[in-house]
């Protein structure tokens, strides 16, 4: 990676290890870098500890999604999913445990995979991507058991509601679809851009971020980031954030979201934007919270830069890891 390549690098995905001491990040060149949080957060951290302990090329295309199970790191490349054992990665071994491809209909251009979630109830992996469909794979056998069709454009983001066992998907076509995981049938379809309070036609209609917390749902993208009450299927608050949001999470009583613009937005449920914390990248793609490890409780964000900002106190940027 020369300095010119670093200049044009974008980080698209992040995932913390099960123990919470390591962070894996994927970029647009198809590389995955593993950082040691314990080294970077230790009192005698140096510049070298902000560099990855392991950096390897995992896929041909960009790594748009990373997901950690209890033992493995799952990464999504151009139409394929690879699994890497965390234990092996920590030992700097870059051999994939397995690589699986969902079955695609078209073959001219391989569709990307934008989102992956795990259904813990039946241990299945749910992926959505460029072919407008949601594929569900059984983790034990590795067989793609079902395909959920319904979106008319590619899928940006996926979300899972555990209590009701429902899958939520947001796509480029502007619809948020809710699927029943047990029956694999569509339950609802919300076209967010049709709601006046949320719609922003100057940007577009796509939905690029989804998050749920019991009955609440966050969604945003072309339309403004809005908080929805799922029972009534209506937006309760709309957040006046200028850019298009790409990832949003519920954290305690805050909503944190990142997207276009070099800042992390802290918002309150009521619809006010409490704070906008500045970051290094000029626009952000991914936000991750390390809640598994109380010692290394950090928030990391990555975007159109080769640097990943680390927030130890969520109110300001502490330092940056760099590829």
């Amino acid at each position, binding site marked *: 990676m020369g300095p010119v390549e670093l200049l*044009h690098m974008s980080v698209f995905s992040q995932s913390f290890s099960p123990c919470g001491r390591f962070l894996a990040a994927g970029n647009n060149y198809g590389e995955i870098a593993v950082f040691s949080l314990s080294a970077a957060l230790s009192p005698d951290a140096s510049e070298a500890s902000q560099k990855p302990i392991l950096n390897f090329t995992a896929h041909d295309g960009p790594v748009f999604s990373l997901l950690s199970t209890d033992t493995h790191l799952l990464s999504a490349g151009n139409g394929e999913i690879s699994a890497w054992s965390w234990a092996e990665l920590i030992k700097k071994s870059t051999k994939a445990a397995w690589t699986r491809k969902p079955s695609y209909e078209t073959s001219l251009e391989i569709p990307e995979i934008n989102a992956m979630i795990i259904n813990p109830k039946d241990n299945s992996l749910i992926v959505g991507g460029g072919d407008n469909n949601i594929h569900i794979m059984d983790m034990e056998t590795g067989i793609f058991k079902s395909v959920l069709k319904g979106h008319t454009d590619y899928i940006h983001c996926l979300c899972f509601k555990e209590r009701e066992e429902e899958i939520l998907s947001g796509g480029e076509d502007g619809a948020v679809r809710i699927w029943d995981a047990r029956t694999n049938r569509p339950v609802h379809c919300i076209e967010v851009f049709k709601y006046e309070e949320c719609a922003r036609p100057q940007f577009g209609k796509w939905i690029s971020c989804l998050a749920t917390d019991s009955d609440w749902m966050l969604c945003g993208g072309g339309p403004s980031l809005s908080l929805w009450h799922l029972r009534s299927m209506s937006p309760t608050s709309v957040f006046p954030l200028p850019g298009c949001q790409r990832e949003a999470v519920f954290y305690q009583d805050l909503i944190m979201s990142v997207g*276009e613009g070099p800042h992390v937005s802290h918002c309150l449920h009521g619809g006010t934007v409490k704070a906008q914390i500045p970051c290094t990248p000029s626009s952000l793609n991914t936000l991750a919270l390390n809640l598994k490890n109380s010692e290394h409780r950090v928030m990391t964000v990555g975007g159109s830069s080769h640097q990943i900002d680390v927030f130890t106190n969520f109110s300001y940027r502490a330092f940056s890891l760099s590829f």
Partner: protein
Amino acid sequence: MRTQITSSATVMSSDAVKKRKPKVIRSEAGAPETKRGRAEGDQDVRVYNEEVELEVRDPQQDYMLYKDTCAALAKLMEEIQELKAGGAKVQSVEIEERRTQCSVHFITLKKLNRLAHMRLKKGRDQTHEAKQRVDVLHLQLQNLLYEVMHLQKEIGKCLEFRSQHEEIELVSEEEFFQEAPAEISRPHVTRDDQHQLTLARLDWELEQRKRLAEQYKMSLARKEKIQKAIEQKREYLSSLQPGLQNIMQASLPVQEYLAIPFEHMQKQAEVARHLPPPLYVLLVQAGAYGQACDKNLSVSISGDVDEAKALSRPPEDSQDDESDSDAEEEQQNTKRRRATLGVQLDDKRKEMLRRHPLSLCVDLKCKDGSVLHLFFYYLMNLNILTVKTKVSTTTDLSGAVSAGELLNSESLLNCLYASDHGKETPNPANRYQFDKVGITTFGDYVSDLGHPFVWVQKLGGLQFSSGGAQSGLTGSALSASHMERTMKLLRGRLQARLALHKQFSSLEHSIIPVSSECQHLFPAKVVSGLVRWTTMSCQEFTELGFVQHVLKAGLVHETDLFFMATVERGTARLRAAVVMNPRYPEVAPLFSLSLHWKGERSGRTDDNLQAMESEVNVFRSELQGPRPGLQLLTNQIQRLCVCLDVYLETESQVCDGSEGPKEFPREKMCLRTARGPSRLKPFKYNHPQGFFSHR
């Protein structure tokens, strides 16, 4: 009286008849003559010799006689006295008798007195004689003692005598007995006698020396002969010289006819002898390289040979100082206020920066006829080489305004090797020399004296420790190891610049020259067009808002060239700020984009513009074109135009929400217009299918 005494003595002692001795000791002058005469005449006459009598009389008896006589005399005197007292007459017989007795007694007394005197005298004489004898003996003793001492001294001197023969180193005895012939060594004698042995050895030494002297004379004579022979031969050779010259002259036309510039090379070799060592190394290596590998390289020497000759002689002040413009620059740099000191400093500076009168000119010819002239100079006191350049082309190059800096001789050779700026002297010792004369940086003099690039030093075989990895080579080996690469780089640089020159003149006319080999990289129809191509200064570049990320990443240097390209389509205007490293095309130009269309966006705010930047910056290897990759820049600009087309045609949003006619109808074939979380557009062109896809 004497005569009287003699006769009386004769009278008194008639019994003693002695032979009269001629030797009568009475030494009165008159007497001896008389005595002698008488003695000779009267030998028969008996003469009474009282001295003889002296020997027979006994002194003791004489003493008794004297006492008796005195007593008798006293008695007689008494008697006379009595008689006279008794009234007798003076002439009485008794008194007369007594008087006569007294007179006799008086005569006896007189005789005794005489005898006493004579005895005394005799005794004295005897003593005197004995004394004399003792004295003589004493003298003899002294003499003998003196002689003894003298002899002892002489013996001592003899014993101490260091003969010269002891200073002569003689061969050892064994050698002597072995080597010397029998007549000299005479062993039967010398073995016993040390003296003879030494003599023999000395003889042998003498013999040997004589022999050696003989040999020496003979050798001298031989040497003389040989000297003469040499002299003769030398004369003969020098007599040949004019003949050879004539032949050389006569052969000149032949050389020209056959195109072997033998004479020329001889002349050059002659001049080359006066070159300073680094220039000589450069000449030799460049000439060798030219002959072996590169027919289009030629080397020649220019400058004043006489001055160079003058330099190699012991110091005489050369009056030819270097250019006056040096002095002008130094006037500006002078720190002192007082004129005299300033002038002194100026002179010292000029002296320090003096160039050797000879310089090398290396010409690199390219296929299209353009020539890169390199002039190499040697700064004597600083021990560094500098280079100046000139480009001569077959065609006139005045077309392009933006190309002004491309062939500027000041910057043409910048960074031939990475970070070799040629602004500072590579010789660390010069720092101390500069401090002495108040020169702060060498950069001030570079435009006049030439650039001291590190590769120039290496070509001249000069290696300065500068912290980088050092090869163990010096001198010619160092020069040779760098020659080929440097020449290739120089040629590449010239060709790249000339190509850019041509390209720029085309770009300024809003035509992007794409060669036939590169047509496959782009679709057939490209609507966006280049409208402006200008050059920028470093200052202007750093003030642009959308290039700050490049500056922060440290990818911009002062030695870079800066340009601004403007691509337009309809209402959309794309500005691209270009940073070109002098080592183009080894180092690709870096583009930063800013789009003005319905608002201002840049690569920082718009992910798609960043993707377009990636297309030209990151995927540059696709755009290099045929070797040596001189079309990189124009291909990059063409690709930008293509990407702008895609960008504008795939923008489906309309400002006010209403679906109106799009400004840019979709013409490009794309499978998908958005992909991935950042919804990137398809910028990658696929040949020959002709559609666009995502990376």
